[in-house]
């Protein structure tokens, strides 16, 4: 069982800083998802752990052993590439055997271990096919088997599901999680899909501009984003511009104390989720007009126009689809928001992921 530790890791490409003093600890057997938009540095971070990129400053360690001067092929890692990078001239079996054979393991051990991996990844039938003769999902499992074959201490996954279609993706996501928990291997998992990260990870590191913005359990990140970027990137949220007045912020009748450090007339953005907006009959509440009704399956999202602080504002409200018929486009309603569910951040840092 092994842990990964990154301290003050910096990586620059010319004038671009890809990793800006990143600290990260992954506990033994833990799966941490690196989540962020493209260009946020998550893949660079993964490749730095793999040694495929050399960091400019800081320390990368596995089990407290500094790897900074250790070449990739001597690091105790296994990696699944976004493109899988299966060797086209080798069969599934030979691909999985590759890390064992280049290490000079005895033939009997190689055979036994490859059979284990084929079993673990459910690839028995495809064992003697070439990579171009198997499906995307099978190629993905083969890449996973190859990464795990030599029993590495740390497993690195670089967007392992992005090349697959939506249906296969969910199944394989759970498959990866099953395999990871079965072998109880410390894992770093790069993805840009927040639902994927939430579903698979023990903890999620939200990354932006080469930094880790927030590192926490999925539920905590979902419920309590600590930065506007986390708030905007994770889940779908209302982002409503508001103004501080008399030390507080009002959204209709809802009143929130202004955050520490804000002054009168400062512009802020209020983040809250569509399922946290409620319809109400109370004449005190904020009047809105239904502009658009979008059916999303289990829920239906209402786009609602209102006036707030003298300007037009759009709210999103989710309600169970069965109740949506009662609110056609053009109808006038009132809404309310529980102030405790609203997060306020300065307007200048508003983010559109």
């Amino acid at each position, binding site marked *: 069982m092994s842990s990964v530790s990154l301290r003050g890791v910096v990586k620059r490409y010319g004038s671009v800083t890809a990793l800006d003093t990143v600290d990260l600890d992954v506990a033994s057997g833990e799966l941490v998802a690196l989540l962020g938009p493209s260009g946020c540095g998550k893949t660079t971070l993964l490749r730095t752990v793999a040694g495929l990129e050399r960091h400019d400053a800081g320390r990368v360690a596995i089990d407290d052993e500094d790897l900074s001067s250790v070449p990739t*092929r001597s690091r105790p890692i296994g990696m699944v590439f976004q493109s899988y990078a299966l060797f086209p001239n080798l069969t599934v079996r030979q691909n999985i055997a590759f890390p064992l054979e280049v290490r000079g393991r005895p033939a009997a051990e190689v055979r036994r271990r490859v059979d284990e991996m084929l079993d673990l990844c459910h690839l028995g039938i495809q064992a003697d096919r070439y990579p171009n003769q198997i499906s995307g999902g099978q190629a993905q499992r083969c890449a996973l088997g*190859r*990464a795990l074959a030599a029993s590495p201490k740390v497993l690195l996954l670089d967007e392992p599901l992005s090349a697959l279609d939506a249906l296969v993706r969910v199944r394989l996501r759970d498959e990866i999680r099953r395999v990871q928990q079965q072998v109880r291997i410390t894992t770093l998992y790069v993805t840009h899909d927040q639902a994927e990260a939430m579903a698979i990870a023990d903890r999620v590191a939200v990354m932006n501009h080469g930094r880790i913005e927030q590192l926490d359990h999925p539920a905590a990140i979902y419920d309590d984003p600590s930065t506007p970027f986390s708030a905007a990137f994770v889940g779908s949220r209302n982002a409503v511009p508001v103004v501080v007045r008399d030390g507080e912020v009002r959204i209709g009748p809802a009143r929130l104390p202004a955050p520490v450090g804000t002054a009168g007339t400062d512009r802020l953005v209020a983040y809250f989720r569509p399922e946290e907006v409620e319809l109400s009959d109370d004449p005190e509440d904020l009047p809105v007009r239904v502009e658009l009704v979008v059916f999303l399956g289990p829920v239906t999202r209402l786009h609602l126009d209102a006036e707030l602080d003298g300007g037009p504002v759009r709210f999103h409200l989710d309600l169970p689809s069965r109740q949506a018929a009662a609110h056609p486009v053009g109808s006038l309603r009132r809404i309310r928001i529980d102030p405790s569910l609203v997060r306020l951040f300065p307007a200048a840092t508003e983010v559109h992921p």
Partner: protein
Amino acid sequence: MATHETVTPDRMTPGPTRAGDLLPPARSAFGRLREIAGLWLPALPLILVIALLLLAPALSLVIGSFRDASGFSIDPWIRVITRRGDQAAILTSLALGATVATLCTLVGAPVAWVISRMLPGRRAAWLALFTVAGNFGGIGLGFAYYAILGTVGMLTLAIQGVGIDWVPPRPSSFGGLVIGYLYTNVPLFVLLTIPSMGALRDDWWEAAQVASATRAQFWRRVGLPVLAPFIAAGWLLIFTWSIGIYGLAYALAGGGAAMTTPLITLRIGDILATDFTETWRANVLSVILMAIAILSLLAYRVTLRRAVRWFR
């Protein structure tokens, strides 16, 4: 029937049908002609050129090689194959082609690999250089050989100038021909194989590193097996083209009359220019050259099919 056509003359779509016809339209001979013309007319000039100027001459040579004054005969073939001079020309051409192709591969494959991994800007500059060199051939290149490696050539004088008693290979010798041929063919080989070097994806090398492989292990287990068929295909093309070179050989061999190194192409050219009574011999030699080229091209296609099998 043709009278009911509602199709305007400038519409080239075939199959005039009248709206509302319940039965399949009965077509007149004229209608069918129009249909065929509509399908083929724009390509007709090119098809004629291909048929009359490329296919027919090749066929005519094949047929002609089996004829003598009395009609069908394999006599010309026997007389060519058993003659020592012709045998020598065939064997020398094959040996020259194989030597040139092998040297091109040994030099060109590493160069193509290195260039394929350059940044786009630098790669473009190299491609331009190879394009220029690959297009410099024929008589001009033959002349350059004399200017560099002739008895008073630049390099000859330079080497002799530092006190080494060195005589460069005569341009008409086997070695001289190889040097001359390499000049155009190395760039062609590089230009041919650079795109296929892209077949070897960088992340395979990364994956091999993650799997703990050394550079040598990677090349032996993955790199060379993937690239080998592409490189072999390049070898076959250079081989095919080399045995067919005429202008450069003519210049290097001094017109082919005083031949120290017999080549099929030079034999053919020489016979046609000087000796009308021997045309049948040139004819058989041409068909032999043709057969070698076709076999080589077929091998090229098979190799290439093998090369791309992992990528389909």
